[in-house]
């Protein structure tokens, strides 16, 4: 997997832990929703904890853990399946302040969609990263100076800027 943040390929400090693996004694790990309680009890105080969610997850069920989670990774089973974008919005609305990651076969053309819905990072398989390099992700992210809707990481919507210009 390759990790993209703000249009740049970056080092991933997190390790996805498979359900059959033992909890490691060090390092930042991402577990499935089912192992969340176990990980909270078994991790050392220095270890970062993240959870990966299916795009059908109920944000209310995960909200009680927000203060102890540093990362939430939302799965995109297909790049055309937009449920993850709505879930990201709901997770942000419920107050999650940590790293929000889109995980799946997303393409560079979705860089802006992901950021506006509240994602900080995008995790993609290597075959896509090989075809779609850093320059393409950066360019796609900067395609628009402003958009019509209010979103995370935007400078304010076109509507908002019009209103301020008229004041």
């Amino acid at each position, binding site marked *: 997997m390759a990790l993209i943040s703000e249009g740049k390929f970056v080092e991933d400090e997190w390790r996805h832990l498979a359900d059959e693996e033992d909890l490691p004694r060090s390092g930042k790990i991402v577990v499935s929703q089912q192992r969340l309680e176990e990980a909270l009890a078994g991790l050392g105080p220095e270890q970062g904890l993240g959870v990966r969610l299916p795009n059908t997850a109920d944000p209310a069920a995960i909200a009680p853990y927000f203060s102890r989670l540093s990362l939430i990774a939302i799965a995109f089973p297909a790049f055309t399946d*937009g449920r993850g974008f*709505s879930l990201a919005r709901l997770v942000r*609305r419920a107050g999650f302040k940590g790293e929000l990651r889109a995980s799946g076969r997303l393409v560079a*053309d979705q860089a802006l969609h992901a950021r506006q819905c509240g994602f900080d990072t995008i995790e993609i398989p290597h075959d896509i990263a090989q*075809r779609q390099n850093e320059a393409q992700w950066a360019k796609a992210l900067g395609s628009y*100076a402003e958009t019509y809707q209010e979103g995370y990481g935007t400078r304010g919507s076109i509507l908002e800027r019009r209103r301020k210009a*008229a004041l």
Partner: protein
Amino acid sequence: MTAHDPQQAARPNTPTTTYLYDNYDTAFVRERVAEFREQVRRRLEGATTEEEFRPFRLMNGLYLQLHAYMLRVAIPYGTLTARQMRSLADIADKWDKGYGHFTTRQNLQFNWPKLVDVPDILEALAEVEMHAIQTSGNCIRNVTADHFSGVAADEYEDPRPTAEFLRQWSSLHSEFSFLPRKFKIAVSGAAQDRAAVKVHDIGLRVVAGPGGEPGYEVYVGGGLGRSPFVGKVVREFLPREDLLAYLEAILRVYNRFGRRDNKYKARIKILVHETGLDQIRAEVEAEFAAMDRTPFAHDAEEFARIAAFFAPPPYETLPAQSEALQSAKRENPAFAAFAEVNVSAHKIDGYAIVTVSLKPTGGIPGDATSAQMRVLADASEKFGFGELRVSHEQNIVLPHVKKDDLFALWRMLDAAGLATANVGLLTDIISCPGLDYCSLATARSIPIAQAISRRFKDEERQREIGRLGIKISGCINACGHHHVGAIGVLGLEKKGQESYQITLGGDPSLSASVGELLGPGVGADQVADVIEHIVDFYLSERQGEERFIDTWRRLGHARFKDVLRREGENGADI
């Protein structure tokens, strides 16, 4: 900035009766073109696979059809300026085969563009404040509205400011660009529904609230396709300031819970049907209540800014009746027929609404040549404040013509082959492109429309028959809206042969109903015969001025089936 700002008025050929882009809109559409140019470049270079490219080319209106690419240009709420119409004609000449096809969703399709030219075509469109954004794909599509908006005598409020407000909100919506399926919104603001709001994913009717303030009656879950549903009222009155927030709540519920396992069950109509209206309403209302409303706090001001553009043109004060019109009608029977059939009541005295039929005898419904587009642009400037509309019946409307000018306009149209007097009559057929163009189609549609058109070409006979909508689709996706045709024709493929199912009793208006099947399918060469038998039976049974649909409702479907059964015994294979 108001619609009559001197800076705006200085633009050539631009009426001040519709929305004009500001710097933000211009920048956005330009950036969209640049983005698509880059997407095409990356596709040609191999950075993007065809599968990855597909949703993005669709969201820019570009389909891969049977023989070539097809580009679907958005005509938001069906409103065009003369300058925009001329630009469409220029594009047809420069990059296509000299014609375009107006569709049932108030769009224009070019059937033969080359992929490498499409960014340049989009650039030419941007030049005249047009685009092809979201005319396809699983996103919020081009918002449609009543084609008589702003001029209809029965109008409560012009629905176009609402449609423009929604156009902006839905453009590149980051959350709703990868929905389970396409999403169509229509808006109407009149007593009569000319926008078919009950057969859209969301239908909006502008209505007065308890205190007389304008808001919306909201329908959800209507649609045609293989499972037709009439939309249901999800909110009886939605205050205007809540419009975007409420629609966002509906879309969020749909995006999260709409089915994605089967594309034929992915529209919101299926979610509403399977979940139940009450449950959907509860979920939408819960989401609406939980939303952060800060981003919508100034929606009312923005709506007012947009609405100011849709000011009435500088009408003259005229008498309600026109002497010139009356005498021209007496002297010229062909013009009298046109004035009778293609002209509708305008809300301002001395003015009329003219519908120009794109359904000449034996023609392809909705097609216009570049020369005809230019004549229409000229006619709108000479006689109608430079404004045109596209109707979902695939005709062109000149919304503000002085009654005194109707005869001169008719002569101009007649010289260009645009004076067919059949609007709303039997040969004003709605048809999808069918198997002649479309890769989804299972049968041809255009030759069926042409055969019916030739069979009933006698305009006097058509006037005798009266208002009767025939709608033809070349597959069950129902782009020709056959479900809501008084007579619907659906082309299917049976054992390698084209077979046409005929339905009766469809109605797209507020009294919406879905047509009922007449019997087994018939062959392509029999469709016109069957329709003639049905029409003859109607004529023999109708009472007074009764419309076809009303006779059908009174007599019942079985009586019409009987007619065909008898005909079948006489040799027709039906």
